[in-house]
């Protein structure tokens, strides 16, 4: 009796596993269920590396002289709220800046926003002596200000000049964006917006502002989700990473540069 039962159980279990694998396959093929899984993160669950947030910036659509993204970032994160009275302009916190470039040979001008590139291999994380500069599972490169000692090694290591140091006591911080004297900070892809549950999750402020102005120069999304707008666009057209030679694999890609 027993000898007969064991193989029967084994077969049925295999069949069961096979059947469940097939259903999983169908789920992936349809695509729809995958999108939902990728975006649905309840508040009590940790972020995972099933996602990687990324940005595709089209320099052809970025208007010269327009600073909507910069202004939106400052407002959203409470930068330049009037606290930094003694700092020079170049010392004040700036998470996203506009860069205008001109090709000397052709006089062709391009305009683009430059921000933390949220590298896959971030040099700022490599050099941090306390582990304050870290990469989150979903690809965001952040500063844990609780452990940041303000040594600014990360600022020296970053090839994109993306980080700022706070020189003065701040009093007007926003409740979603803690910032303080003696720590380094940079673009967070508006992490407080991304961490909201599925219904309330919003794109970063700069993306919203660019779209609201009708430029639509920035596409934001999950680069690991094959059906996301950003993945589709990256697949369709050529895009470039700034300083690709450093092999940092940034999460911010550019077109038209």
């Amino acid at each position, binding site marked *: 009796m027993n000898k007969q039962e064991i193989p029967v159980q084994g077969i049925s279990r295999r069949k069961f596993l096979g059947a469940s694998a097939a259903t999983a396959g169908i789920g992936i093929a349809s695509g729809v269920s995958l999108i939902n899984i990728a975006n649905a*993160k309840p*508040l*009590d*669950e*940790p*972020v995972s590396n099933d996602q990687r947030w990324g940005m595709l910036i089209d320099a052809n659509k970025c208007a010269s002289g327009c600073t909507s993204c910069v*202004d939106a970032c400052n*407002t959203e994160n*409470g930068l330049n*709220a*009037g606290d930094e009275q003694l700092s020079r302009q170049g010392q004040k916190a700036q998470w996203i800046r506009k860069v205008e470039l001109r090709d000397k040979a052709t006089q062709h001008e391009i305009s683009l926003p430059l921000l933390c590139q949220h590298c896959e291999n971030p040099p700022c994380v490599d050099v941090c002596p306390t582990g304050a500069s*870290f990469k*989150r*599972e*979903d690809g965001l490169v*952040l500063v*844990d*200000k*609780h452990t940041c000692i303000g040594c600014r090694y990360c600022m020296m290591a970053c090839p994109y000049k993306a980080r700022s140091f706070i020189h003065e*006591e*701040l*009093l*007007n*911080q*926003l*409740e*979603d964006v*803690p*910032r*303080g*004297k003696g*720590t380094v900070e940079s673009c967070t892809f508006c*992490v407080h917006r*991304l*961490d*909201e549950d599925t219904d309330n999750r919003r794109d970063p402020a700069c993306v919203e502002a660019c779209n609201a102005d009708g430029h639509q120069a920035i596409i934001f999304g999950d680069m690991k989700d094959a059906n996301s707008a950003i993945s589709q666009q990256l697949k369709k057209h050529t895009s470039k990473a700034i300083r690709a030679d450093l092999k940092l694999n940034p999460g911010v890609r550019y077109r038209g540069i």
Partner: protein
Amino acid sequence: MKYLHMMLAMLIVVLFGSTTIMADVPSPTIPKGNAEKCVLPTEEMRVNHMTKILHQRDETMRKGIRTEQFSLKKCINCHVVKDDAGKAVSHKDERHFCNSCHTYAAVKIDCFECHASKPNARKKVSATAGGKD
């Protein structure tokens, strides 16, 4: 009769004595929160609030877990203390909820060097976009 007098006298001494002791020992005046009850029993929060928010701090920072129970933002929103003009006081004010006890216990905290010490809902910020007060 004699004993009754003595007992009354003792009772008076005990009663007055205890009130004078109460008045001599300074105790912090802790402002009440705005909700019906705290996220945990008050006694537990008094002893353990720091470990709760420290744990939540790392969960939020490193893993993106933003549950509301031990969120500092929620603490600040519920325990807001308003001044005579009806404006929320900051951590610079001795009436601030955290200050009321931390000053008494001589415990210096640096949470509010970075975190907002009074509620500032985002709606207000976007309404004054461009020109901040």
